[in-house]
């Protein structure tokens, strides 16, 4: 598959005779590089910047992360302290997001919940990344028997119902945040490893790799210097999309009563807590639900934008 210059793909340019000018056959001029040389990364960034929706998502994400850090600090309330005299209060000057069934301030709880959800999502995604890249890299690079065995193993792991593993793990071990992350990653990395494997397999027969190899580069150097950096696009895209997946999965676990432990709350567990009474206390569901949706959206749209930016074919 040939690498195409994105500018050649642009079909909407209207050309008029004025756009053309004769260039001489001056030797010197022919050597001048017409366009500033830019790295693939700058190129991608420039394309991403043009995607308004993706940029807006990025801004939203940054804002959510900032608020999750700052929100609990600026509030005068504590996320765990009950106030049985002020249960289920609608949003007010005192409690910006209202209070919950034990009179806890929803503003501080929402942002604390966002912290937990983001930590779970990011940590799970990073662990997926780490295992997936190493495993997938080895599969793709060595190929042959190694690949066959490792691939078979991941296929078997994949055929174990994900829910089973997660629930069993959470029942066997104490459901701390660490266990939840572990449970989410135990099968989560497989997808990443397959993507890396596919990329590496495509890349490893490229001329530049062969060149490097013929000059005596070792496996480690080939893999980490030449192959992985070139597969980074799909990896990053998969990463951005696996963060919201992990956040959603944690919310699902909360629904089953296997999520984070009270009084710690995640956005998912807060929404689930509010589920039985939301028609009477909509604010208890609204704020965490909107935040969870916003996070999901922002990650998804940003991930899409990133994919488009990194993969010129898909413009």
């Amino acid at each position: 598959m040939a690498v195409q210059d994105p500018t050649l793909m642009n079909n909407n340019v209207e050309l008029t005779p004025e756009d053309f000018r004769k260039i001489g056959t001056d030797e010197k001029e022919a050597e001048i590089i017409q366009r500033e040389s830019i790295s693939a990364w700058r190129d991608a960034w420039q394309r991403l910047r043009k995607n308004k929706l993706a940029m807006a998502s990025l801004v939203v994400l940054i804002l959510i992360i900032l608020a999750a850090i700052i929100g609990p600090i600026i509030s005068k309330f504590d996320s765990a302290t009950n106030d049985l005299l002020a249960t289920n209060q609608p949003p007010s000057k005192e409690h910006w997001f209202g209070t919950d069934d034990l009179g806890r301030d929803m503003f501080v709880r929402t942002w604390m919940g966002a912290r937990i959800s983001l930590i779970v999502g990011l940590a799970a995604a990073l662990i997926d990344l780490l295992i997936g890249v190493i495993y997938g890299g080895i599969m793709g690079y060595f190929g042959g028997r190694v690949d066959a065995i490792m691939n078979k193993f991941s296929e078997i792991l994949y055929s174990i119902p994900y829910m089973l593993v997660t629930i069993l793990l959470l029942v066997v071990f104490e459901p701390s945040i660490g266990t939840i992350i572990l449970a989410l990653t135990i099968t989560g990395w497989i997808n990443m490893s397959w993507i890396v494997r596919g990329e590496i397999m495509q890349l490893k027969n490229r001329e530049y790799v062969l060149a490097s190899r013929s000059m005596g580069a070792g496996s480690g150097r080939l893999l980490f210097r030449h192959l992985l950096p070139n597969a980074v696009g799909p990896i990053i895209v998969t990463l951005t999309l696996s963060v919201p997946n992990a956040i959603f999965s944690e919310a699902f676990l909360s629904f089953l009563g296997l999520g984070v432990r009270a009084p710690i709350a995640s956005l998912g567990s807060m929404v689930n807590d509010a589920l039985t009474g939301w028609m009477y206390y909509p604010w208890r569901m609204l704020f965490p639900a909107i935040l969870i949706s916003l996070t999901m959206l922002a990650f998804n749209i940003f991930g899409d934008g990133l994919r488009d930016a990194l993969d010129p074919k898909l413009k």
Partner: protein
Amino acid sequence: MVRYVLSKFFYMLVSLFILISATFFLMKAIPGNPFMSEKNVPPEIQARLMEQYGLDKPVYQQYFKYLGDIATGDLGISMKHQNQEVGGIILQTFSASLKLGIFAIIISVIVGVLLGMLAALYHRKLIDNIAMVLAVLGIAVPSFVLASLIQYLFAQKLGWFNVMGFDGPLDYVLPVAALSAQPIAFIARLTRSSMLEVLHADYIKTAKAKGLNWMTIMFKHVIRNGILPVVTYIGPMTANVITGSVVIEQIFGIGGIGKVFVDCITNRDYTMIMGVTIFYGVLLMLARFITDIVYVLVDPRIKLTGGKEG
């Protein structure tokens, strides 16, 4: 060919064996037993129960016994639902999940593809935006939130449907809607982006240049090529959807296999846990197996690499 089939089949058995072993030991690592409750039965009776179900033996013996039973196709008797066969419970509850699932798949594909196509054809117009907002909502709203919202609105407030139950055709509407929201969103986005790609491809331009009429271009080229990526997505989606959604089943009070599975873990219903796991595993593996075989029959290139003609 025969060798190819045999080797595939062999791998399937190996996978199944590993699946069974892993689940068995993981399951045995959970504290508790099937006979515990807030009010304990006297130790003698508890001991008798353990003995009757063979739970008093060392775990490895239980494991080999189980393997033996499985080899003869016996999934055993549920430890919680006395005297009910695991296989029977699985089939009954799976039929509910499957009915829901099949409808959800059909609806998701039809609605998703339509939305995606509209969005692509009216690229950057109002319809595109509306379609994409809908699609994005499907991805961004947790299914339990969506399910309880539509249940409240359409069943409790408006009274158009039953809040729960699974009797008449109307009872399918809300659960299927909740179940298909996410796949619809994915499919719509996939269709849209692939259609856009196709619309800008050279061969479409060529077709246009040749003066083919719009309808022909749409149906012969754009749609056919545009929905191909959707087909790749349907595979994993089908597997996900028909194996049951605990959330949807719980909220709409449907006795599907997803709910059974969560319950049997809580109950430490060992035979049931194993049964459902094996069922899930076999279902997926068998589908993959048959697909591979059929694929060989259809695509001659695979034969060459798959094995020598036998």
